């Protein structure tokens, strides 16, 4: 088996909500609720789920952009969960992130070259005299014209800005990139361009990716393995090529069934789940999907089922009703 580059164990992230006269913690948002998974070197793992399921929080927590409440993160066999700031710096270089909205994540008053230079200089990636060539190379790699280096973010289209976001992540020669909804804000024709670019760069630089998206079709196309999240929990994990044939969890099946198929000859009633995603404030014990689940049983209300192996390989699911799937 390949060695895991990232090992996440029982990761928890709660956000306290303060209020009242004494500004005390009144309740907590359970954004990520005990998530365990690995990402192997060279692998692309997708995280899919609806808004509020904790996928972005998880993505930020594993690279310590937000501090986890509990649990451990091991990167390349080193535990980084509690590394102090100075010791974390080499890992800050190795682990990069690409955000959904490239415009709000770029400094509007910096040219592209100045922005790239800052990170490259900080981490000492190339000597000063090679800086210009390195940046020119980088800009060409992500498919932008050379004159882009002296322009400002507002001079670019959405797709081009996402290419800049990718260039910035690549500038410090990372090993591991979290891509948080990198193509969700883009038009379909541009989406395909950016996905292809990311595939090319992943192969060229041997990157390992954690790809967060709400779009099951994009994840299926782009990733090797997918984690399905619901309200802070991973409810199923399986290889992408098995997604349609072997997904077992009722929520994964519902997601698959709710996606409109792009074939007018294959019209079928969409899987319609009742109700909305429950509130993440202090959720009751048991599986968070009980209120909408078509296969709910009494036991589901008592405790959250464990994520357990299903058959051979890397398929895992957390559900009491798997056997009658």
């Amino acid at each position: 088996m390949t060695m895991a580059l990232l090992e996440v164990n029982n990761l928890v992230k709660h956000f306290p909500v303060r209020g009242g006269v004494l500004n005390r913690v009144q309740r907590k948002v359970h954004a990520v609720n005990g998530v365990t998974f690995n990402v192997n070197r060279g692998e692309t793992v997708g995280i899919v789920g609806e808004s509020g399921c904790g996928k972005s929080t998880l993505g930020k927590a594993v690279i310590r952009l937000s501090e986890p409440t509990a649990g451990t993160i091991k990167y390349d066999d080193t535990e980084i969960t509690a590394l102090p700031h100075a010791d974390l710096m080499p890992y800050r270089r190795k682990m990069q992130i690409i955000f959904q909205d490239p415009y709000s994540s770029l400094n509007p008053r910096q040219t592209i070259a100045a922005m790239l230079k800052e990170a490259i200089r900080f981490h000492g990636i190339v000597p000063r005299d090679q800086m210009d060539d390195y940046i020119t190379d980088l800009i060409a790699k992500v498919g932008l014209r050379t004159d882009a280096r002296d322009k400002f973010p507002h001079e670019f289209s959405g797709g081009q800005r996402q290419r800049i976001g990718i260039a910035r992540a690549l500038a410090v020669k990372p090993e591991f990139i979290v891509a948080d909804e990198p193509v969700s804000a883009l038009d379909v024709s541009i989406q395909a361009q950016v996905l292809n670019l990311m595939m090319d760069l992943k192969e060229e630089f041997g990157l390992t990716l954690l790809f967060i998206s709400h779009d099951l079709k994009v994840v299926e196309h782009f990733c090797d393995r997918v984690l399905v999240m619901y309200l802070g929990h991973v409810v199923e994990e399986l290889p992408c090529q098995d997604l349609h044939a072997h997904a077992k969890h009722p929520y994964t099946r519902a997601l698959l069934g709710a996606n409109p198929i792009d074939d007018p000859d294959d019209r079928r009633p969409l899987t319609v789940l009742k109700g909305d995603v429950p509130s993440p404030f202090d959720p009751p014990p048991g599986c968070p999907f009980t209120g909408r689940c078509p296969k709910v049983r009494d036991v589901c209300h008592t405790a959250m089922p464990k994520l357990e192996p299903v058959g051979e390989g890397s398929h895992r699911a957390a559900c009491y009703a798997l056997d009658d799937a």
Partner: protein
Amino acid sequence: MTTQPPILTVRHLTTRFRTDRGVVTAVDDVSFDLSPGETLGIVGESGCGKTVTSKSIMRLLPSHVTIIDPKSEIMLGGVNLAHAPEPVMRTVRGKKIAMIFQEPMTSLNPVFRIGWQLDEALKQHTDLSRRDRRKRAIEMLELVDMPNPERRIDEYPHQLSGGMRQRVMIAMALICEPDILIADEPTTALDVTIQAQILDLMNSLKERLNTATILITHDLGVVAQVCDRVMVMYAGRVIENAPVRDLFHTPHHPYAKALLESIPKAGRKQQGARLPAIKGIVPSLFDLPAGCRFQDRCAYKQQRCVDVEPELVDRDGTARPVRCHFPVNTTDLTVNATGQ
């Protein structure tokens, strides 16, 4: 469905905006028909003019910067809405044509209760008593599967979830039983399981009320599942208009073909395969090329495409107009037609 005369006929609709950088044509010579009970999808990327088309029909664009070209015709029941005065439009909006917007939070008024907002159209268009209007509003909320309608009617928009807000929008749009419903990206802001609920609802309401629908979306999966016809727009122009099956199986315009190919296909994973992406970006409306607007990104470009912009023509008489000199997926018929 096409045997019935169209309920809405749009001809040469051209909408321009005055901007700081000069006048820009956002919708350029758009023509189409909408039959009773039909669902017409309008697809295209940001800035292609799909929303401006629908807002031109509703005349919801800011009048001080908008110019609707005098030759534009939007015929509804013998009236040309393109140049109708505001009092006439007030009898049309909500009663004959209603609209659902993309963002249900910003389209509902946060300071009024749901019931008040549903009541507005009824006050304008009916003579019902106050009690009957409230009854009608509750019925409408029931029709859109709103849980606890008697309680929800007295709540404010912020007390509802995104899916419930979109249900309120649909209830507001349908409360006066309009002949035409325009839905502008009705599910784009929603999660996929909520989108499924809303699409399911729209489908069942369409069957029950026989409303003609214009569905604006960029999601080709949604189009495939709910539309009868599809109109594809690019840089302000209609480039193809075809029955949904024909468009998905044999798209004639290279842009329509490329767009369909560029989306990942569910259940057909090929390890490491690249998507057939469309190169380049949409041209700026301020700087359009002389010939075909898709020429820079087209795989089938020839000299004629640079010199002359193609017309939207129905070459083989199958009610599938295409704006291309060299359409793809066609029989020999078109080779003759292009060699004229």
